């Protein structure tokens, strides 16, 4: 295995400045209680002016007059690291998080797909540049060694475990990621380089410094498995856009919605999943948010399809107040099974599979607008036709049955019709209180219509019309 370490030396600063032009004046991130704020990170200009992380804000302002500051938010920095991990997950199935500032990804397998290391490295660097993160990259056979090498020298490459001790030998003990307590003692004993440490017999090291040091060295050299948390893509999706002003028109909400749904689609594609239901929330100034729950018939992940359904639902919704922010939450991301299509069937440009068509119709006409039918073996006409598609019964009735059934029987008026078939006595339903006792006839009316009508047993009219043989 080969591990690439992506070290983000100015992650805190980058997560604040991402997407903005780099400032050409000293800038520092500050953190802490109001009375004793300290600098957490400084940019190049501030460093040149003599500022360093850990300084008090008051001191820094005394040293550098035109210092601008921004608040350091630990949560934001962590979110940025997760974002980088999510990005790295595109390139490798194994991504390790080493907070606060590094991730490692296994690239030995990925190189078969993305080309030899120099090309792959260039690709990683180009992506990181686009994401807006300053970075250092190193390659080593173990994740810990990659981290140490990345701190030491950007772009260092060690490909075999045999070459590892030699490359690590010159690295200062203080920069080897060893426990802080030990580094002080090692320095006191005159061991300044990792090489000094690796040359000592293992048993003696363990006796003198305990298990911690030996284990740390073993992890470094890959003699022991690393204990780093692996990145797992999230099981839910949330996104929020602040509109910055009160929006009263649907049209203005579509653009942020489209962008967030395309983010959702990207997330779904990365985890090879789909989304079946999600909630769009519109935040208002002084009122509880309006929630718009969107359910689909089958998991879907195409950005256009999601947007289409959301747009149609939004058009049907009346928002009670102006909207301040829009958020999307999808808690359940089931696996996505693309619809099977025949390679040789000609498809039209606007082809829409049946489930998607139903989604679209549901979105505008309501959730029970599209349904299917099922035959129930109940002899009563009202009960024999059920609105569902669960399990079609196989029993088909042999007596003549109309293709149209009236929702409820109505009196049949007009001149006396011709009886084509009948009577057929239906006397049933005593078990659920809906018992009927009718004689059914197939009638031909003077107009040529064929009707299915019934009357009370033993009589010939008046008829009640119950269906049409259409």
């Amino acid at each position, binding site marked *: 295995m080969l591990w690439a370490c992506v070290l983000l030396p100015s992650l805190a600063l980058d997560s604040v400045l991402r997407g903005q032009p780099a400032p050409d004046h000293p800038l520092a991130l500050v953190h802490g209680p109001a009375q004793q704020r300290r600098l957490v990170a400084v940019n190049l200009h501030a460093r040149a002016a003599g500022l360093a992380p850990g300084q008090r804000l008051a001191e820094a302002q005394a040293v550098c007059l035109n210092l601008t500051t921004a608040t350091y938010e630990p949560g934001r920095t962590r979110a940025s690291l997760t974002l980088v991990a999510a990005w790295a997950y595109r390139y490798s199935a194994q991504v390790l998080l080493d907070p606060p500032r590094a991730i490692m990804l296994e690239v030995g397998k990925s190189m078969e797909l993305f080309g030899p290391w120099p090309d792959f490295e260039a690709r990683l660097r180009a992506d990181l540049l686009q994401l807006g993160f300053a970075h250092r990259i190193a390659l080593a056979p173990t994740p810990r060694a990659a981290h140490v090498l990345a701190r030491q020298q950007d772009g260092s490459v060690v490909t075999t475990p045999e070459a590892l001790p030699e490359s690590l030998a010159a690295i200062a003990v203080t920069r080897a990621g060893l426990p802080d307590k030990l580094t002080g003692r090692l320095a006191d004993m005159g061991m300044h380089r990792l090489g000094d440490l690796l040359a000592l017999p293992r048993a003696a090291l363990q006796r003198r410094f305990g298990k911690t040091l030996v284990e740390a060295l073993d992890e470094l050299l890959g003699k022991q498995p690393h204990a780093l948390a692996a990145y797992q893509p999230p099981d839910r999706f949330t996104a929020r856009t602040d509109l910055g002003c009160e929006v009263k028109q649907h049209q203005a909400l579509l653009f942020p919605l489209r962008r967030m749904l395309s983010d959702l689609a990207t997330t779904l594609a990365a985890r090879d999943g789909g989304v079946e239901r999600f909630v769009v929330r519109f935040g208002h100034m002084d009122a509880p948010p309006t929630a718009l729950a969107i359910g689909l018939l089958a998991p879907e992940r195409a950005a256009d399809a999601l947007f289409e359904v959301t747009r149609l639902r939004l058009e049907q919704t009346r928002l009670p107040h102006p909207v301040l922010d829009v958020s999307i939450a999808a808690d359940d991301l089931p696996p996505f099974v693309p619809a099977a299509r025949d390679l040789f069937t000609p498809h039209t440009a606007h082809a829409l599979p049946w489930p998607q068509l139903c989604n679209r119709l549901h979105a505008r006409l309501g959730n029970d607008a599209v349904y299917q039918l099922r035959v129930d073996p109940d002899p009563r006409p009202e009960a024999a036709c059920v609105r569902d598609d669960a399990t079609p019964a196989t029993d088909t009735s042999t007596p003549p049955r109309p293709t149209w059934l*009236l929702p409820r029987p109505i009196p049949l008026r007009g001149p006396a019709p011709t009886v084509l078939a009948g009577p057929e006595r239906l006397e049933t339903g005593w078990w659920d209180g809906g018992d009927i006792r009718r004689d059914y006839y197939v009638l031909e009316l003077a107009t040529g219509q064929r009707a299915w009508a019934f009357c009370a047993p033993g009589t010939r009219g008046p008829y009640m019309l119950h269906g049409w043989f259409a």
Partner: protein
Amino acid sequence: MAAVASLANLLAEQRVWRGKPTALAPGKQPTGLDALDAVLPANGWPEASLSEILLPADGMGELELLLPTLARLTRADRHVALVTPPYVPYAPAWQAAGVKLSRLGIIAAPAHDMAWAMEQALRSGSCGAVLGWPTRVDDRTLRRLQVAANTGNALGFVFRDRTALANPSPAALRLEVGRNQLLVRKCRGGNPPSPVAFARAGV
């Protein structure tokens, strides 16, 4: 030789109008009624087009006319959509006629959305046939439906009262269901033939 070839090309491109309309290629959508297939220019329903079925009243055998087609389509696993049917489609009878109920979808839409739903279903390309019962429909809507049927390569059927015959229609076929006969009022690709006898199934 070159001149002959160019003439053939010219005719194939159908940019020259000829006095005698060229016969349409035989279609792949037989109606299931041999006598009707024989007189229709496409030897069946006009493909990827809208057909109008005009009725004096409900229950004249209009579904009996279509059920063989619907049964054939659903058995080939194509979806058939009924948009705002006027009555409850009585499942036992449809099943007895050979329609696969799992491929039959019913779309209930308010009157003002009926045409939209029908257009969506036609355009989607996932439906073999779409049947609609509009309460009122104008020429412009019918034209949209005709275009949608063409785009989605589906059979569109619109059921209207026969009084609509007074107005022109963009539908490729206008078929009036009369008592024991079918009258082709308009058919694209030929002159309307004489009435076809339509014997209803015995009961």
